[in-house]
Every structure is written in C-alpha cells, then in structure tokens.
C-alpha cells in the first residue's frame, strides 16, 4: 500500500510540475469549449440542448490527448523497466498510474465541467448529475486510456492509433454519460440506471484494463 501511494504521489507531482500535464488538458478543454459555440452558432437554446454532449466529447478528447504521458516518458527513460522489477505487480502499477491520471486529468475536468458548461448555457439543474456522471465515468476513461497507452507505448505515431483503439471503447461511456445528464430535460427515469451502468463500466475496466495493460507492457519490454 505504501509503495502504491508512493507511486501515485510521484505521478501526481510529475503531472503537476512537468509541462504538458494537467494544465495542458485543462487548456485544451477550455479551447474546444470556446470553439464549439463559434462553430455551431450562438443560439442559446440549441447550445443548452447540446451542452451535456459537447462537454462529454470534450472530456473524452482531453483524456485521450493526455494518454501518451501515462507510460511514454517512463518507457523512454527506463523507469518503467524498474517498476516491472519492483516489489509491486505490474498490474498494480498500471492501476496506480491510471488512478494518478484520473486525479490529474479526469477529476479536475469533471469538477470544472459544470462551471465551464455555463459557457454553453448548461441548465443549472444539470450541474449535479453532470458532475456525478463525469466523476464516475472519467474513472473508466482513465483506466481504458492506460490500456491504450500500454498497447502503443514505444510505437512511433502511437497517438493516432490510441484514438482508433480507445475511442470505440469509450462509446458506451459517452452514451450512458449523456443519458445520465440529459435526463432532466427529457426522461428523468434514465438518470439512475445510467449512473449505475457508468459505475459498472468503471468497475469492469478496473478488472480488465490493468491485466491487459500489464500484459501489453510486458510484451513491449521483452
């Protein structure tokens, strides 16, 4: 447990202090949110209708954009190999890194999303559901992102492949995430089940992603 916390702390410090970490994802999030109304047009009603979906898609892209930082630098400088030989199983290392990625990217963006949603005229009744759904959903986003990062570590131009591999797996999270948040507008009874399914997806990713990611890392390093 101590090693695990130590790893999470190290990752967090790295994301905060290195360039291109958490701040970059936030900046990207903000930029896309500014571009959207410019592209769609300033119709407030339309924006309100689109806001939850737009926020979710922006969240997916921001998470996706920061995947190469999960294993990339550690693979290049050799610290990943040290972690493989360390006392912790590689699966747990993956969990730690994914958790730190979530703390550094998914969680802050989820917390900020309702506030930034004001830019898109997001209905204030949706603030809490959106926050809850994004917190639940972004956990699986980070876990799956770590899987994508593990699969493509050390590949040149891995970024494009990560999006091709991981975005299809993000589809259910997007669907249920939006269902949970737009429920207030149309069908409120969708909200509860959608939240539960988001939580279930996160739990399933917690089981599947670390095992698969660790297997991928091992075959990359032999």
């Amino acid at each position, binding site marked *: 447990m101590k090693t695990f916390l130590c790893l999470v702390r190290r990752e967090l410090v790295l994301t905060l202090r290195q360039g291109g970490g958490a701040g970059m994802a936030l900046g990207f999030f903000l930029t896309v949110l500014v571009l959207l109304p410019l592209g769609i047009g300033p119709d407030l009603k339309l924006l309100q209708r689109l806001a939850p979906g737009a926020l979710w898609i922006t969240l997916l892209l921001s998470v996706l954009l920061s995947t190469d930082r999960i294993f990339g630098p550690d693979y290049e400088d050799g610290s990943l190999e040290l972690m493989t030989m360390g006392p912790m199983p590689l699966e747990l290392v993956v969990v730690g890194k994914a958790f730190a990625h979530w703390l550094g990217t998914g969680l802050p963006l989820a917390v900020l999303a309702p506030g930034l949603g004001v830019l898109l005229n997001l209905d204030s009744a949706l603030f809490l559901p959106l926050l809850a759904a994004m917190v639940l959903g972004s956990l699986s986003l980070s876990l799956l992102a770590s899987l994508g990062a593990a*699969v493509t570590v050390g*590949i*040149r131009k891995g970024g*494009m492949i990560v999006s*091709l*591999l991981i975005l*299809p*797996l993000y589809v259910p999270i997007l669907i249920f995430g939006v269902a949970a948040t737009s429920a207030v507008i149309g069908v409120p009874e969708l909200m509860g089940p959608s939240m539960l399914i988001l939580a279930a997806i996160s739990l399933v990713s917690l089981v599947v992603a670390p095992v*698969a990611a660790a297997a991928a890392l091992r*075959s990359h390093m032999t």
Partner: protein
Amino acid sequence: MQKYANPTRFNAIAGAVLPWCAGLTVLLFAVGLYLGLVEAPQDYQQGETVRIMFVHVPAAWMAMATYTVMALASAVAIIWRHPLADVAAKTAAPIGACFTFLALVTGSLWGKPMWGTWWVWDARLTSVFVLFLLYLGYIAIWQAIEEPTRAARIAAIVALVGFVNIPIIKFSVDWWNSLHQPASVLKVGGPAIHSSILIPLLIMAVAYTMLFLTLHLVAMRTEIMKRRIHNMERAEVAG
C-alpha cells in the same frame, strides 16, 4: 490438434482442401441466391426489399463470427504462443472488416425503404459500427508495430479486449428498444420465419461461412509464405 498446427503441414492440407471449399462456395451462392432472389415469396409488408435480408443477415452473422474466430485465435496465440494462431488472427481481421462493412451498407440500403432513413443511432447499429472500428484498430496495430512477434502479442491483447463488444451486439436488440428486429432464427421455441424464407437464408449463411473459410485459408497461406520470404531475405542479408 497440435500436429495440424505445423505451418508446412497446414499449407499442404489447406492447399488440398482449398479447391473444394472454393467450389462449394460458388455452388452454395448460386443455389442460395437463386432461391433467395427468385424463388422465395415476397413479404406481404416489405415486398421485394425483403430479399436484401439474404445478403444482409449472413453478412452480419459472419461479421460477429469472424471476430470470434479472431479472438479465439488470439487467445490460443497468447496461451500457447503458436505462430499459426497469430497468422489466423491477423488474416481474419480484413475479411471480418469487409463482412461488417457489407452488413452496414446493406442494412442501410434496407433501412431506407423500410424505416424511412439510411441510418439511426440505435444500439444494434451503433454496436456494429463500433465493431467495424475495432477491426480497423486491430489492423492498424499490426501495421504500426514492425517486429512481428511483438505485434502479434499486442494485437492479440487488443482483439481479446474488443471481444466485449460481441455479446453487446448480440443482445443489443433485447436490452434496448431498437428499430432493428430482435433475433428471429436462433431463439427459444424455434425460428419465427417461414421455411420458404428460412431455407434460402440458411443456405446463404453456409455459403458465407464457406466464403470466409476459402478466403481465410488463402490469406493464411499467403501470410505464411510472406513470412518465409521475409525470413529468407533476412537470412540472405545476414549471411
């Protein structure tokens, strides 16, 4: 089983079986298409467009079956590290992607007259579209990693993770309300289709399966020979 997995023996057997598979494929397609497009009765609601089913439904079945073959081969490759399993998984992917594409396109052509729209974002259509993307991602992995053994391992992991989508496709019409009709052939209490339509459909399904088998065997043989040439060239450069 292991002794058939020897690439040389596999090549010999596949070479002997191939003409028969190809012939049977042509024959089954001829019979199935004749029965389906000419003999089968019109649907009282859908008219002639119902005949799209004979192309669409088997393609969708094969899209899922091919992914299952790919995932099984990947599992074998991971567990027993057998190169022939890598070859099987790798060569199944483009064929499966084509079946998926065919299912999507014919489904869209069928949807226009029946549902009044080319495309709806419901569970069945979306999950099949995701299947198509998964095939593309899998193919991209093979192309991105140059070293074949490493590519094989990574691609196998990707294929196995993507397998979660297959049950989702199968049950999407039961779990969510969908424009797409629920299962009507494989279900408790027997098929809900009259035999005049069911028999050509099943013949077409076997024809598609034989088509997959033929293409897969050809592709596997080609891949094995490609690897041999690659190895020989490398040996020549080294020696």
